[in-house]
Structures are given as structure tokens and as C-alpha cells.
């Protein structure tokens, strides 16, 4: 067995990485914290924390609005962050990067604006059975408002999309497809290149929910040819309250404004208002300036490690944990797709996931329990919820060993 804390196959410098994340040295209930909930929110490296403090100590001013030095410096920092994100996603233009509050906000923006202009009664919107509520509810609400129809791509027992059914669901009535890149509950990596290509044959645009993907894999929006791609900063080791909507220039130019107010205009009068060019058309009010700056710092940080290295290391953790859980009596893994990210949902026969989560937390282990904002998935598997563990590149096999011991102790206590 490989020495604890070091995975030599990938060559990741795990001890140095863990030292970059101050929270990992915390104790919970007198035990060392084992944080297996990065899928809910990722921890922040010192660089990101420092960047936010530096912003408030040295730069704080409103952006796009003033001519004084602080305002200019902050505007430059914020717009540089936009360019960092553009390059990270390989978007063609920085103005294709719209800052939002997060993925939920980004999807609501597209649903509202796209819906306003392009959705009418009888039109169809396609989502999948594994979507997070944030990629269901905005579309469901839009359908209710417009008399449109929400169609659902089914999944199989392994938690994979049934592509044959997807092909049948794409029709002349389909106006948009909204799909998760990676399932936050099942860990399934969806074949989004194929999904996008099939939709584009019928000129149907595709929005990809990348919330769970961006921390685990490189995303090239031009190569994917997706029409929209969105993610949250806090899942990419950046601050909470900031997110990104990438949209192809042609779409963002066509979509009407979403939330309007200061910052979104060229001219305003009571008779008529002319809206600003991209991306400011979609960025109303004072934004989460330090959030954008912090997110760019987080992206620069993970690029020093490299997403390919991160993906390879996390795959080792996934295999190690999956193997260990499969050997643990009574454990059943939910979501066994051939291609998975480092997300494992499981149940233990006869035990409620909340009880398992509570006793794991008592031993210092942070997991997530419940429906994970994916109630349709729970309905499919007839479960009240699952226990979910999600790994990031600061987790180790040693932590997985301790988790398994704690899980066995938990199961024994609950039986």
C-alpha cells in the first residue's frame, strides 16, 4: 500500500498543498477535521484569503464609476480577473464572461432572459433526471409562466444518462437543453460534447451547469462549443457569492437584460434607456468585487498544480475510497457510472443517512447527508437521502482510511 498522505503515481506534493489551507488543521469535537464536503463548498488557500484581506486593506473602491486612483486600481484588478477566467475557460472574448452571484444566479439569468425572448406556449425545455434543483426550478418556473413543457432525459441504474432517449427527446419544439457537466450527487461525468453536438444538429442551444465540474477538470468552452457554461467561485476554491456565466457572444448580445439598474446602462431617461454593451448589460449594481479578484487568485493557484494533475490524483482517491467502501459490509454505493468524478454517494442498509452523518461528524468527519438538492435522484432510487463524500486535491488516502474506520464504528453503534 502507498505510504499515507502521498500518492506517488501522480506526484502531487500533498503535504505542501495541505499547508496552504489553514482550515485543514482545525479540530472538530476534539478530532482532526477530515473535510469530505468540498462538493458543497471547497476550502480556500491562504493566497485567496490574503487577496481578499489585501483588497479591503489597500484597494477598496467602487469599480467602473470613479476617476480616482483607488477606483482605477480596483477596476483594473476586477477586469483582469475577468480576463483570467476567460483564459481559464478558453473563451474567445472577456466580454463573454459575466460575473454572477453563483451558478444558481447564472442559470436564473439565462432562464429569465432566454425565456423572455425565445420561449412560448408549447415549446419544450430539456433537462436531465440528475440535475441539481438550481438547474430544474428556473426552467420549471419558466415553463409554468409560458405554458411550455419541461422534458426530462432519463438515467439508468448506474446513474448515467440514456443517450438513446435523449436523441428521441430532441425535437423541433425543443428550445434549449440544460445539463450538468458532473452530477453533484452521483459523480457521473456526462458526455457533454456529444450532448452539445446532437443538440446543435437541430440548432438547439445548450447550457452546461459546471458547478461540480470546474474543480475537477479543465473546461474549454470553445472546444465544447457550449452556448452557456456556468459555475460558482466557492466550489473552485474561491470566495462565496461570486460565480461566472460564460455565454457565446452572439447569445449574450441577443438576450435582453436580466436584473437592471446602476452599471447596466449607457443612457437613462424616463422616456427610454439604452443598455450597456457586454458584459455590463448583465452586471447590475455594485458587484462582489473582492469575490471576482479572489476567484482569479484561486484559478491562478490551481493552475500552479494543474487540473490534469488534480484530476489524476482525485481519480486515485476515488478508486481508493470506492474499493474501501465496497469492502465495508452493508454499504451500497449510489451512482456507479463508468466515468465519475471524486463524488461518492452511499447508503448503509437499514440505517438512516442522517444518523450516519451525525456520528461521522462526532468523529471529526465532514460529509453531507440528505437529498443534496437532487430530490428527483432520490425518488429514482427510492431513498430518503444518501451520505455523500466529495474529495478535493487536499484530501489523502490516510483520511480515507480514518473515514472507513469511523464508518465501521458508526455502523456498529447504530445497529
Amino acid at each position: 500500500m502507498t505510504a499515507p498522505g502521498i500518492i506517488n503515481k501522480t506526484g502531487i506534493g500533498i503535504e505542501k498543498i495541505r499547508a496552504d489551507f489553514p482550515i485543514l488543521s482545525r479540530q472538530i469535537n476534539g478530532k482532526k477535521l477530515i473535510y469530505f464536503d468540498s462538493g458543497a463548498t471547497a476550502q480556500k488557500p491562504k493566497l485567496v484569503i490574503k487577496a481578499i484581506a489585501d483588497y479591503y486593506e489597500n484597494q477598496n473602491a467602487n469599480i467602473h464609476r470613479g476617476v480616482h486612483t483607488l477606483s482605477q486600481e480596483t477596476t483594473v484588478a476586477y477586469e483582469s480577473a475577468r480576463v483570467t477566467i476567460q483564459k481559464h475557460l478558453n473563451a474567445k472574448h472577456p466580454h463573454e464572461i459575466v460575473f454572477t452571484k453563483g451558478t444558481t444566479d447564472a442559470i436564473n439569468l439565462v432562464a429569465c432572459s432566454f425565456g423572455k425572448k425565445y420561449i412560448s406556449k408549447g415549446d419544450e425545455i430539456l433537462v436531465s433526471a440528475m440535475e441539481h434543483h438550481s438547474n430544474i426550478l428556473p426552467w420549471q418556473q419558466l415553463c409554468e409562466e409560458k405554458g411550455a413543457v419541461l422534458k426530462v432525459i432519463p438515467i439508468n441504474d448506474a446513474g448515467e444518462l440514456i443517450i438513446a432517449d435523449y436523441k428521441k427527446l430532441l425535437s423541433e419544439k425543443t428550445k434549449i437543453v440544460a445539463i450538468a457537466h458532473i452530477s453533484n450527487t452521483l459523480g457521473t461525468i456526462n458526455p457533454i460534447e456529444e450532448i452539445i453536438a446532437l443538440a446543435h444538429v437541430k440548432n438547439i442551444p445548450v447550457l452546461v451547469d459546471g458547478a461540480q465540474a470546474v474543480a475537477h477538470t479543465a473546461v474549454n468552452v470553445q472546444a465544447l462549443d457550449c452556448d452557456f457554461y456556468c459555475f460558482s467561485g466557492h466550489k473552485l476554491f474561491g470566495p462565496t457569492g461570486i460565480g461566472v456565466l460564460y455565454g457565446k457572444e452572439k447569445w449574450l448580445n441577443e438576450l435582453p437584460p436580466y436584473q437592471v439598474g446602476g452599471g447596466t446602462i449607457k443612457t437613462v431617461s424616463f422616456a427610454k434607456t439604452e443598455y450597456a454593451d457586454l458584459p455590463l448589460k448583465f452586471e447590475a449594481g455594485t458587484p462582489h468585487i473582492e469575490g471576482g479578484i479572489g476567484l482569479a487568485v484561486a484559478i491562478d493557484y490551481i493552475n500552479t498544480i494543474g487540473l490534469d494533475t488534480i484530476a489524476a490524483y482525485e481519480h486515485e482517491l476515488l478508486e481508493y475510497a470506492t474499493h474501501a467502501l465496497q469492502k465495508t459490509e452493508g454499504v451500497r454505493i449510489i451512482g456507479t457510472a463508468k466515468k465519475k468524478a471524486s463524488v461518492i454517494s452511499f447508503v448503509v442498509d437499514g440505517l438512516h443517512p442522517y444518523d450516519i452523518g451525525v456520528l461521522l461528524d462526532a468523529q471529526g468527519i465532514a460529509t453531507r447527508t440528505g437529498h443534496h438538492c437532487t430530490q428527483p435522484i432520490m425518488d429514482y432510487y427510492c431513498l430518503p437521502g444518501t451520505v455523500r463524500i466529495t474529495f478535493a486535491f487536499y484530501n489523502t488516502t490516510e483520511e480515507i482510511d480514518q473515514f472507513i474506520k469511523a464508518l465501521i464504528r458508526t455502523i456498529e453503534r447504530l445497529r
Partner: protein
Amino acid sequence: MMSIETIENEIIEEFSLFEDDVFDKFGRLIDLGKNLEKMDPALKTDNRLIKGCQANVWLYSELKDGKIYFKADADADYAKGLVAMMIRVFTGHTPEEILNAPLQFIQKIGLNSMLSMKRAGGLESMIKQMKLDAIAYKVQS
């Protein structure tokens, strides 16, 4: 019937054996839940679900000779343990005694720091419902 204060002190003493070990405290809570009297499935209707609990918790009460008797069930053992503990404190007491119960044991056994905000909210909801039942019975009599 012991007074509510005496029952609370009993619980404090039982939990003091575990000192700060949260795992053992939860274990004890779960044991209390396992000993909860079985509830007739016919009583587990939607209108008896306590709102605000993360797990499903059903609560039933009836007044006999001026005292309230509670029955409950939950689909998660920790929630069963919490409601079992509250039933142990409240059941067989008058509406007045229930409404005036100080419930200091919750803090003394460290329950509020053990429970996440959502689960602490669930415990509050249980207590609130039991006290609402007590108010209703007090008004009736």
C-alpha cells in the same frame, strides 16, 4: 410521577458520564430512541408531522386525568432519540408543568453545541409543538 426538574437532573447525570465525547453522547441519544414506545402506524399521519425537522418526526398527544401523554416516531434514530428525551421529560405532566419547564438540561448536556443549526431547529420545533399541544389542552379544560 417524578417532577420535570428531577427527570432533567437524571438526564444531566446520565450524559455527564460521557464528558465531552460527542460520539458517545449521540450514541446514548440513539439508545433512548431505540427504547421509545412503538407508535401505532395509523397515528403517523401527515398532519402529525412536526414542521421544521430535517428527519420525519410524528407526534401524537392525548389528555388523561389532566395530564398529557405523548407518543412519537421518527425515521432517523438521532431524531427519535431527541423526541424520546423530550417525551421522557414531558409525558404524564400537566399542561401547566410542561409550559413552565425550564429545560436547562439541553444546554447542560451540551446538546445545543452537538446539534447543527438545522437539527437544533428540529429540536426546537419538537419542543414548540409539545408546548402548543399543552396550550391547546389548557384552553380546553
